[in-house]
């Protein structure tokens, strides 16, 4: 009795990737590298999560809405030393001055480099000097600012002592140096955006009889608006995060310390604090030793940084970002 072998249809040829090589069959060195890559990646994510969660926990624990709207005062007890309204406004004011000074400087030089850029050696010199500014530590920029603003020439910008010594510390001084901090990311973002604008857009504008500068104003600048916005956001996050310049150039007074009698100008000429210097002063490193206040202020600061990060990402995703600014553009 014989049975027919059951008909087995031939299996169709396997499509797609073949058998994946399992790490089990790899060399030891490769397996080690694989394991280390996973460890490093996941470890880093864990550290980041730990920092954010810890700061969030401490912040929510100590942050009271009243802290945001009450002025700081000098006290040995953490209960009566007030809030951080003045540092908050100080940060806002510094950001405003810094960005207002940095935008024309950065956008102007980015346009010049991308659209004119002649003579070439001068363009290269300008580009490398921006790179040097980007690489200079903020503490060096701060102490340079002190040297500048203590000159007799700049006496109107800060407080002058009876003996004639120029104090050199004021919102104007700190804001001017902040603009240097904000300059490199702003410049890089704008320049990359301009270089990514397709040449036919310029050619079309020239064909219509527009001059170079008219092309820049009516065609190029509107098309890199989102790059400039990214640059401004990065600049703002640099400025609000900077401590060294504030500590050296703003005089580290808890409240606004106006100089002179002209309203408005007296605040600009006067001393003050920012959120970062408030955190520094209230940590055990400063005199304050009020960790609860420091945690609360740090929470607010981290919230700002988080929001700025989200804005950068939003602009990057909106598609109008011609340069396609990547992660490196966001930090360098």
């Amino acid at each position: 009795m014989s049975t027919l072998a059951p008909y087995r249809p031939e299996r169709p040829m396997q499509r797609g990737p073949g058998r994946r090589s399992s790490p089990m069959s790899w060399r030891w060195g490769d397996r080690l590298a694989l394991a280390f890559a996973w460890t490093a990646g996941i470890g880093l994510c864990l550290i980041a999560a730990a920092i954010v969660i810890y700061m969030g926990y401490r912040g929510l624990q100590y942050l009271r809405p009243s802290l945001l709207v009450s002025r700081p005062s000098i006290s040995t007890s953490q209960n009566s030393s007030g809030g951080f309204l003045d540092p908050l406004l100080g940060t806002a004011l510094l950001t405003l001055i810094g960005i207002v000074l940095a935008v024309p400087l950065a956008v102007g030089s980015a346009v010049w480099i991308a659209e004119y850029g002649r003579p070439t050696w001068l363009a290269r010199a300008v580009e490398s000097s921006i790179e040097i500014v980007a690489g200079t530590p903020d503490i060096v920029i701060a102490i340079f600012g002190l040297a500048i603003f203590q000159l007799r020439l700049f006496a109107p910008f800060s407080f002058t002592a009876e003996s004639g010594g120029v104090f050199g510390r004021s919102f104007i001084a700190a804001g001017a140096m902040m603009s240097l901090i904000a300059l490199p990311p702003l410049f890089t973002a704008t320049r990359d955006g301009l270089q990514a604008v397709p040449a036919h857009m310029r050619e079309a504008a020239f064909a219509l009889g527009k001059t170079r500068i008219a092309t820049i104003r009516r065609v190029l600048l509107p098309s890199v608006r989102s790059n400039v916005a990214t640059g401004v956001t990065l600049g703002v996050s640099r400025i609000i995060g900077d401590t060294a310049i504030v500590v050296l150039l703003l005089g580290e007074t808890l409240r606004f310390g106006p100089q002179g009698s002209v309203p408005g100008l007296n605040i600009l000429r006067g001393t003050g604090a920012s959120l970062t210097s408030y955190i520094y002063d209230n940590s055990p490193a400063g005199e304050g030793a009020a960790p609860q206040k420091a945690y609360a202020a740090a929470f607010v600061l981290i919230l700002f940084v988080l929001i700025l990060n989200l804005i950068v990402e939003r602009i990057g995703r909106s598609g109008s970002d011609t340069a396609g600014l990547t992660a490196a553009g966001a930090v360098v």
Partner: protein
Amino acid sequence: MLRRLRDPWPDHRAERTLGAVSLLVGVVVVAMVVFVGIQAWPTFQHNGISWLGPGGSLETEIPNMINSSVHPAASVYHLRAWPLVYGTLLTAVTAVLLGLVIAVFSSIFIVELAPARLRRVAIPVIRLLASVPSVIYGLIGILVLVPFVGNDLVTAGEKASVQNVVELTGSGVLVTVVILTVMITPIMIALICEALVSVPRSWREGAIALGVNPVRAMLAVTLRAARPAIVAAAVLATARALGEAIMISMVSGSRSFAPKPVDGIIFLFEPLRTLASSIVDYHENLSAPALKSTLYAFAFLLLFSAFVLSIGGYLIKLPLRRYQVRG
């Protein structure tokens, strides 16, 4: 005047105006070197090149400067900055080396291995870590890590063994290097990731088609092509690490002490001070001329290293163009 501004500009005037604006940036850099250099000159003049060398004790030299008169004698300028230079190099180099290894492998993880969902989370997280202000790292260091190290890691016996030389509070080499590494690694990851992504995919696929496993292909092909970007990232991170002032001033213990590796495990807990952090530590005493000049000399040294790193970074980026990798 206003009409001239509102009317369409002639091209040559626009070019000149924009050129002048750009030139202003160059002028600022020159001014920075000149002003810091002028202020630092007396220190270099009085000390010569041995200023950088060892010998002398900062703990007596700096108070001497603070207490000196408005017109200090030449001897007051005497300083040997070696402990600070050593502290700067020690923290920066260790942190960069540690961070580089972590950054390379995390970049491989993010670009190649991570599941898409994790990757979507990881990249924003890295960016956030890169933009957290240094004062917050310092705050975490001084309020969380320093007490932990001081109370739990350093034993009473270790504290007693060196109590005549230096006090171990927990702030020192270990905490500084750890936080500095966490601070600079995200910057390197961002740069390395970008370079890894921009290496042509076909190169790696070719290697895999030849039967190499994915990790080996990554290490041997993609990572090799991205080498210049890795060095560039290390240079940038070194610049950040050398110049970090506030965080180090908060967690390093701020004592002009040169930690000695021969001390064994205690070395990790010994306090130190760097060039940048000493500017923060002494900024209130800038009215003393000798100290002022000394601090500007520190700043000049940092500025000089920023120049060197910037030029080095430029030279390293040159071969990048060959691979068409943006750095």
